[in-house]
């Protein structure tokens, strides 16, 4: 599979030639990320499986499209038609975001723990790969690989939904004049923005989990979740306040409020199934101190995880 043959003659002259071979510094990182994908196939299987399940459900729903759509429009009363049209596409995007977030959480909790548990850390450390490269490759899974995968699978799934809906309409000979699809390209741009802000917002969570996975000897989930909860409980009992609790809540669910303007110019709430491009608020998001404090915390956890791996061996 490798593209570099690395062949070397056995003569001493040959070994001198190898000694001069210098690998580019990104090569170990590239192979370390591939290694993560070999070991954790759920990284790509889970989003694909979620997409397949969604598609299966959607295919069944197609038999009820005309009636279903009319019913929905009737049932939801004042809901704008565009929201109804956007729903299957938005649900697909949300399902994939949720799936990859879950995969990312469980991946991070095991990333630096599994290699100590199965003693393979001794093998990894016998190779010229720095702790920084290793931790970077592991952090890049929830922070880069999974969001990219989620977006790619979402786009593919939405295109399939679009094709299937079009085909269903043709078969049902519905009026071609009525709109039958939302502005999909706009939705996908919004999804891309959503994935980016989500990962920036959740980066401290992933990095904290990564740190715990490198430190805890067992029960990483418990060590990752209980201490923050304990702080919140102690604060509530001691001071009857819940600042830390709301901080946690905001970190988990606050990204939509932080990155989107969810009311229109008349102050009417916007349905989250279809958020127009005009409602993105990147400026507000980037000037939110909470974002930057979170990223500083994430960076600290990352540095600590790199330092810690130096000292860690099998458990």
């Amino acid at each position, binding site marked *: 599979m*490798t593209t570099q043959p690395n*062949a*070397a003659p056995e003569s001493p002259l040959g070994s001198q030639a190898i000694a001069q071979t210098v690998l580019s510094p990104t090569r170990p990182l590239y192979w370390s990320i591939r290694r993560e994908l*070999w070991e954790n196939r759920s990284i790509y299987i889970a989003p694909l499986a979620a997409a397949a399940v969604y598609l299966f459900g959607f295919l069944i729903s197609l038999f009820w499209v005309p009636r279903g759509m009319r019913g929905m429009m009737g049932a939801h009363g004042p809901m704008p038609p565009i929201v109804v049209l956007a729903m299957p596409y938005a649900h697909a995007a949300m399902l994939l975001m949720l799936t990859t977030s879950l995969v990312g959480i469980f991946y991070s909790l095991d990333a630096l723990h599994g290699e100590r548990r199965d003693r*393979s850390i001794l*093998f990894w*450390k016998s190779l010229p790969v720095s702790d920084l490269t290793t931790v970077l490759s592991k952090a890049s899974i929830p922070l880069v690989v999974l969001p990219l995968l989620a977006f790619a699978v979402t786009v593919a799934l939405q295109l399939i939904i679009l094709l299937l809906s079009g085909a269903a309409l043709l078969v049902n000979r519905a009026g071609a004049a009525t709109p039958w699809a939302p502005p999909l390209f706009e939705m996908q741009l919004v999804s891309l923005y959503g994935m980016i802000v989500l990962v920036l917002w959740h980066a401290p969570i992933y990095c904290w989990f990564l740190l715990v996975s490198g430190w805890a000897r067992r029960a990483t989930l418990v060590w990752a979740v209980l201490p923050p909860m304990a702080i919140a409980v102690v604060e509530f009992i001691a001071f009857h306040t819940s600042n830390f609790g709301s901080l946690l809540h905001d970190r988990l669910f606050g990204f939509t409020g932080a990155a989107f303007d969810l009311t229109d110019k008349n102050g009417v709430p916007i349905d989250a199934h279809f958020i127009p491009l005009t409602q993105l608020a990147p400026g507000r998001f980037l000037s939110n101190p909470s974002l930057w404090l979170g990223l500083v915390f994430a960076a600290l956890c990352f540095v600590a995880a790199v330092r810690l791996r130096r000292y860690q*061996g099998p458990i």
Partner: protein
Amino acid sequence: MTVIEARGLRKTFGTTIALDGVNLRVEEGRIVGLIGPNGAGKSTALSAMLGLTPYQGELKVLGRDPWAERDQLMRDVCFIADVAVLPRWMRVSQAFDYVAGVHPRFDRVKAEGFLAKTDIRHASKVRELSKGMVTQLHLALVMAIDAKLLVLDEPTLGLDLLYRKQFYDSLLNDYYDRSRTIVVTTHQVEDVQNVLTDLMFINRGRIVLDCSMEEFESRYREVNVRPEQLAAARAFKPIHERHVLGRSILLFDGAEQHRLAALGAVRTPSIADLFVALLGNEPADKPGSKPGNQAGGSQGAAK
């Protein structure tokens, strides 16, 4: 060229002293056996040399500080930490791809050649291989790396006699070329007696014997003493005496050979015999040992 040089190497785990001022020097092209009882500090010493654990004192491996420069050092140093550290989920082909991807001195063609001599298939996962095959795979990977130093920590633990024999045979025939250096720790000393060029005994965190195998063979003599000669033999101050089937076997350090021949059958002792003689009947509290440094204790901490 000096490959490993340690001066006053110390390592403690809490109150347990794993390395108590180790001084050693390993020259290029040597095959050194580091032999010691459980908890003697073998694994800790190797971990320090491989940059896996911090230490006090001075330690240079190939001129580098292992703790500060582990990843650069690993371009020139290979190690098999123990059997079964290859990740069980990995396919054989993936192991080759990965090492080829990250190691600048890995020769894939060579590794494929070593693998072809075994029954291991590329598509197999490590978890599907027997313990012996995993070791063969690891050895194929390691021998295809053009390293200057190979460190083996109990590389044949749990393997049957055939695999063990094969392991050291391939190492000597296909890998060792007199410019490479090998450091090995093992409890199966009979396997390495004819492999080593140098012998070190470590006990309670200190090196208690450091000699070449030539020196070992010329210095130590074991005599199966005839009963009537026993008193005379004891006068030569044997360093150890044991009894086998009613006969006394005495071990001498540096005694003159022609005199010993008169006492009974003389032979070169095995490493195991010398090991027992030097370490087997040590009093519990000798200089160098500290409270809490019981056998087994520091080994557990070192792992």
